[in-house]
Structure formats: structure tokens, C-alpha cells
């Protein structure tokens, strides 16, 4: 049993090394060392400064310079990821360093502030930086957990297949609905023309499609009085079946979209906030030196 278990373990061993565990957490170790060093220096020197610690002390300048340099370098990931290379510093190494050095900024920049905050450009830059880091942290969580959910959700069906089956079902509904009277046809059109797979940002993220046209069409269909014509009744039964199938495919596709949205949503904060941060950082540095 033990041998079998051991064998199973070996089989399960990951051959893939993600950016988080890159080179045995090399960058995590480096970032931790940086933070420990900064915290140590802060508590040793802050008591000897003779004034409240601030970005204006020598340690403040040092931490500020390191932090500003890191922010610019971290922002360069956007440029770096567009170069496809397999050089020494692979993209995976960059992302690994990006993640851990980015997290270390929470410590470095907070110490740089000397815990002085106010309604000013300096604190704005800090808040934006924390927003970037927080959204990045959400991104790390998303990348660590969501891809498996995504794969689990879709099973053996690809996204393309989902869309194709929806189109096929629509075509069938369209064809089957031809004999229907004006009212029946309107119900078919409701499902065909107004059903939206995705929707807006929040609809996708929350996966709430309460006013789904296909669902409304199904409800209206079921509420129809029994038809006089046998042909109509047969068509209606067939359409109900098709719409039910469509609802199932829609649910699968929408869950897929929700997971995708969660995987991508953080970037909608991370990237714009990074640009805002770079602007605020520039204003922070220039204003400090203009009025110092």
C-alpha cells in the first residue's frame, strides 16, 4: 500500500513550476529580507532621529528612493511581457519578482511615510500604490485558484463549442417556431433576439441574469393556454425543450464568463491605478523638491 501510495505521489508531482514558487521562492526570500532590513533600520534609526520619522529623514529618503525605483520597475512588467524572449530573465522570473517585490512595497513605502498621512498628493500617491498592490493581490489569488475552476466548470466543452451549440439551438428554435402565430412567434423572438450571454461588468462578475430573455420566454411559453392546433402544440412543446436546453448551455457559458471576469477584473483596477500612481508619484516627487 505504502509503495502504491508513494508511486501515486510521484505521479502527482507537479512538473509545472508557477511564478509563485519560481526557483524555490527566490524572490519571496529576497523581498522578505528587504522588508526585515527596512523594519530593522526604521526602528533603530527612528528613535535616534530627534524628530517624528518622515520621508524627510535619511532613512525616509533611502526608502523613498528604493520604493520609487521599485514602482517604476514594477510598472515595466507591462512592457516586458510584450517581448517574447526565453532569455535568462524569463517572463516567469519577472512576474515572480514583480509579485514579491510589489508586496514588499507595502512595508517599504509605509515606513517611508513615517506613518504621516493627510489630505494631500503625498497620501494620494500612497493610497493609489496600496490600491495597485491590493488589486495585484486579488490577481495573485485569482491566478492561483480560478484556472482550475474554469477548467472544472467547462468539463470537456470548449468555449467555441458552447457558442456553437447556442447558435444551433437558436437556429432550431427559429425553424420550429415558424408555424406559430404572432404571439408564439414573439415569444420565440424574445429568446432569439434579446438573450444576452454576458452582459455588463457586474452582471458578469455576479453571474446574475435575473432578466434573462430566454428565461422570460420560457415562462411566457409555459403560461400560454393550450393551443387549438395540434401542429402549434407540437411546435410549442418542441420549443420549450429547446429553450430549456438553451438555458442549460447559457448557465454553463455564464459561469465560465463569471470565472473569466473574476480572473480579469483585478486588472481593470491594477492597470489604471498604476498609471494614476505613476502620475501621483511624479507629482509627489516634484512637489517635495519644489517646496522643500
Amino acid at each position, binding site marked *: 500500500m505504502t509503495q502504491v501510495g508513494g508511486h501515486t505521489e510521484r505521479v502527482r508531482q507537479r512538473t509545472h513550476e508557477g511564478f509563485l514558487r519560481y526557483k524555490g521562492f527566490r524572490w519571496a526570500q529576497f523581498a522578505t529580507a528587504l522588508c526585515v532590513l527596512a523594519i530593522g533600520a526604521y526602528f533603530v534609526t527612528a528613535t535616534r532621529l530627534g524628530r517624528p520619522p518622515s520621508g524627510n529623514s535619511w532613512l525616509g529618503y533611502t526608502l523613498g528612493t528604493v520604493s520609487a525605483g521599485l514602482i517604476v520597475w514594477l510598472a515595466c512588467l507591462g512592457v516586458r511581457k510584450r517581448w517574447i524572449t526565453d532569455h535568462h530573465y524569463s517572463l516567469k522570473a519577472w512576474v515572480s519578482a514583480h509579485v514579491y517585490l510589489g508586496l514588499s512595497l507595502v512595508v517599504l513605502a509605509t515606513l517611508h511615510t513615517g506613518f504621516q498621512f493627510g489630505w494631500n498628493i503625498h497620501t494620494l500617491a500612497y493610497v493609489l500604490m496600496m490600491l495597485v498592490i491590493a488589486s495585484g493581490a486579488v490577481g495573485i489569488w485569482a491566478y492561483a485558484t480560478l484556472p482550475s475552476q474554469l477548467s472544472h466548470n467547462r468539463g470537456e466543452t470548449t468555449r467555441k463549442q458552447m*457558442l456553437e451549440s447556442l447558435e444551433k439551438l437558436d437556429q432550431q428554435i427559429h425553424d420550429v417556431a415558424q408555424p406559430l402565430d404572432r404571439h408564439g412567434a414573439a415569444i420565440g423572438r424574445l429568446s432569439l433576439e434579446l438573450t444576452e450571454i454576458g452582459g455588463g461588468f457586474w452582471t458578469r462578475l455576479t453571474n446574475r441574469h435575473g432578466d434573462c430573455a430566454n428565461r422570460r420566454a420560457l415562462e411566457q411559453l409555459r403560461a400560454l393556454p393550450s393551443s387549438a392546433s395540434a401542429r402549434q402544440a407540437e411546435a410549442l412543446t418542441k420549443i420549450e425543450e429547446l429553450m430549456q436546453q438553451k438555458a442549460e448551455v447559457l448557465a454553463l457559458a455564464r459561469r465560465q464568463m463569471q470565472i473569466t471576469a473574476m480572473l480579469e477584473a483585478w486588472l481593470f483596477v491594477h492597470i489604471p491605478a498604476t498609471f494614476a500612481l505613476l502620475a501621483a508619484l511624479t507629482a509627489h516627487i516634484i512637489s517635495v523638491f519644489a517646496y522643500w
Partner: protein
Amino acid sequence: MAQEFKLRLITQRASGGDPIVRERHVAEPQATIGRAPDNDVVLADLSIDPHHARMRFAGPGRVAIESLEGQTFEVGGRRVSRAEVDLASAPVAIFGTYALALEADEDGDAVVTVTQDDHERHLTPSEFSLKAKMFGRRTMAWTFGLTILVLCLLVPLVGAEIFAHMRIHPDQQWSAGPLSKAHGFLETDCKACHTNAFVSVRDAACKACHQASPDAALVARAQDNSRRRGSPFQPVLVVDHGRPDLLLQGTPSPPDLGGRIALGFAKAFNHPTGRCASCHIEHAPPHGSGPAADKPLRVAAQTCQGCHTGLKDRLDHAGHQIDFGDAPSWAKHPAFRVQLVEETAPGRFTAIRTAFRPTLREVSGLNFSHQQHLDPLGGVTRQALGLARYRKPLDCQACHQPVAGGGYRPVDMPKDCGDCHSLAYARVGGEVKVLPHGSESLALAAFERLSGGGGGNAVWGGSDRQRPGTIAPTAGSAPSASAMAAYRAAISRGGVCFGCHELGVPATGQPDVHRVKLNNSYMPKGDFNHAIPAHNEFNAQHAPAAKCEDCHAAKTSTQASDVLMPAKATCEKCHAAQPQVAKELAGGTTCETCHSFHAPGRASRSPLMERPLEALRWSEAAGKPAV
């Protein structure tokens, strides 16, 4: 020949390529249009009724289209339920996604071409991605970035001048924290201190309002500046600790790595140390969420010992030959030096500083014995016991009286000595004449007045320890004597001046008293707080308190020329050289206890500096300082 409809049904292939065209004739002058399969024109569109409309000829070259179940269709851009069209104008009727183009052929028949406008959108897997539905990330990024750059950098940079008169201060967002209450009136006047962009606050900006000066005009100007800027408070006026160049050259390099890094930054960014703003910090955060501090935060950029260790070497090295000693610690504090008054030429006095030793002598031009006045068994004591003002032996405070704010007022000779040493020199009628004190010429004038006019019945006298109003019969000259003779008599043995004043060297053949120059400050480079209880037996609420004699050997001094100052060792009796003992004995005594930074000759108890902010408010009525 009857008119008929010729139908051409054009269907696009799903795979592209040439469309499929099917043609059919309707052998009737009318044709039906609808979704149901029994129509002539079958349109498979759910928005079309099963039997939607009918076309029929309505005359030569004209076709009428009518709705059968009330549903409309579109002709010439308008929705109608009935239309009559002229085939010559090639009309098009739209039913749902289908277009029916009508035209006449050469036989007069109507050719109806049916095409489907298939706008069906095919979804692609990219539909799953969030970016398909959102305001683009790139657009958002540039929008936010540029907005912040404009609002937080360009507008404050360019707009500070433009908006200043509109009471909008876009550069307020650059302020790192609130100003202290003392400087709160400058909150929106950044340029009062930050006079030049990218140049740190220089001392000139501070001194515009805070520079102390012996020149009243300069002081008035500083106060004016402050008031013009809108200060509700009068500025605290201070002087530099020393000459700026000496301060700069005398300040040592920081000993630790941190200090060197800071200095490197400071030099690299043109941020010199040793400025007013190096120690007086503005925009400091209030503690917690509390209100702003009253005054700028004061921090020590250097310690006293830090600069005063090796200071002489550094200044010598920089080419300054200055006579002073280093004070790296209290133990190594140089021996006290006293400043004495010396008459270098008749009537010319200069101050000299010299190391204190008990044998030092200072010629003040007076005769006085502290010992005689303080001897508990002496004649002075006996006389004091009999006087209503004293009723006890004389003590130090009988003559040396403290003033508010520290220190002692100079001895007022006529007042403090006058109880026993009368200045009365004559009686005219019933009136006793008192000699003006402090000026030889005034005294001489008094004698002249008496001898010249109406002094005939004056009774001349002098002071030989006479009470006020009594005149010694032996001490004056005859009533008929000249003023000069009277003066000569007054300064001679037995005369009114004699005893306290010495006879001087006659410079012009005239008799003369020794010029008097009293020294009011023996240790001008340091201060001693006589007011605190431990330093003053008269203020002491509880023992132990230093007695005057512990520091000043007055009880044994028989000469006015004795220098009654203490040596450093005297202080060390309580303020021992060992720091620990000093701490126990004398609280938190530091260099600043005796030498305040801005006025090293004064102890750090400058009343103006320590005065609460509200006490510095201008007095409204006078518009002048409320001091």
C-alpha cells in the same frame, strides 16, 4: 395578358460564394406575403405574421401592398399598413429582415426580388473576456494618469499665480501637513517661506520676521513684515547662535552612517543643514488627530557636545583664531572665565576676559567692604538693627534685589546706601540739601548754586556715616568758601563723598574722584538661574538650598576690588562631574541650563521664547506688541 408577379428569391450561401437564385411565377394578379408556407412569398422571419400582407396590381405599372392582419411593413423609409407603389420608381418594401424590391419588366409584369438582410452576429470565444464589455483598460489608465498629472502637478505648478487672487490654492494639496498655529496665517502663502521653487527654505525667509537686532529700526521692520503678512502674533525675535560662516565650518561631519547618508542627500539636493528650518520643523503632523501645535516642532539637529568637541581645532583649521575652549562634556568644560572692567586710560574702560582665580582684582573706583557690612558683630549690623527699614543685620538682598525674569537690578547707591550714608551736604534755612549722585558735574553745579546765590546762611556739612538729614559739623568748609573749595572738601577725608569714593589723580590740576565703572555682568557667556529654589536661600521652600556665600565669598571680602565669582569647582559641589551624580543632584541639567542656543550668554529661560502663543498676540488697541 394578365399582369402577374414574377418572384426571384435570392438566398446567400452560408459558405459564401454565389447566391442561390430561384424564380417562380405567380399566375395571379395578386400574391400573398407571410411566414406561413401557404403564402406566395414565404418569409421565414418570426417578426412577420403567418399571413402578413398581399400585393396586387392597382393599375398599369402600379402595385398596392396591404397588410392583412394589421402588422405594418416599411416602404420608402416609413412604416405603413398600406402602400401603392409605382413600379417605375423601383420601390422596395421591407418585411422584417427581408427586402422585396419591385420593378416592371417589358411585359408589364412585376418582378419581385426577395433578399434577406442577414445581420446575424456570430459570437466568438473572445466574448468570454471581460474587456469586450468594459471601458478599455488602456483608455482608463491614460485618463486617470493624465487627470492626476494635470490636476496634481500642472495646475499647482502653473496655476498657483493665476488662482491666487481667486482664493483658490491648487498647491495646497502639496502641503505635507498643517502649519503650527503660530504660522497658521501663512497656510495659503507658501511663497512667504518657500521663496524659490526647488530651493529649500532659507534663513533669510525666517529672519525677515524673526531677526533680533540692537537696532530698533531693524526690529520694527521685522515686526512690520510679520504684521503685513497677517500674523496675529508678534514674532519672537532671536539672534544666530554664532556667525553663520563659523557655524557652517564648526559643525562636524556626522559620525554615523545614517548621518552621512543624510548629509549626502542634503548636499546632492541643495538642502543645507544648519538652517533655521533644520531645527524648527513646520508641516509636522499633529499628534494623533489632535489640533496643530502652537509653535513649530523643535528638534535638535546637533547636540551641544557634538559641535563643541574639537570645535576649536576645526575653526583653527578653517583659519579662524578664536579664543575659546571646547566643552565636550561638563567634566571637560573649561574653567570659568570672568569679564572684568579695566580702566586702560583715565576715564576709558574696557572689558577683559580672564580665567577666574581668587586673587583676581578689579578696580571699580569704589571703596567697599562686604565683610564690614555683613559682620554680625560689626557696627553696620548694630546700625541696621536700629533702622526701621531693616531691624535685622544686613543680608545680601538688602542691596542686591532680584528682578522678575531673573537676575538682579544694579545696586541703586543713593537708595540702597542712603539709609546710612547721607548725601546731605548743607542746610539752607530749614531745608537739607542733598548732593546729586552719579555725576561729578552735577555735584559741582550744586556746590556752585549754593555758594553763588542765597547760600550765605548755609550750614555746610559732610557725610561721615551720617543719617539722612543730619550733617556732620566737621565735614564741610566755611559758608563763604567757593564751590570748588566745597567740592574739594566733599571729596577729602571727612567729606560727603569720601569713604566710598577714592580721590583720583587730578588730570587737569583739578581735584577729581576716581571714575566709577561698575561691572554688571561678570560671566556674560553663561547664565546662572538665581531664581530657582535650590539656587537661592531666599526662595528656598525646603532645604537644601545654596546660600549666597556658597558661591560668593562676600563675608570675607574687605575690598571692593575683590572678584566675588565662583569657580567651576563651586558648581561641581552640586553638579558633579560624574553624569550620574549630576543627574541625581541637579535634575536634567544640560548645557542649555546655562547657555541657551540662541543667546549662549543666557540660561534657557528666555521669557519671550517660552511664552505661550496667546501671550504673543498683538495688542489690538495700540497695534503694537503687547509686551
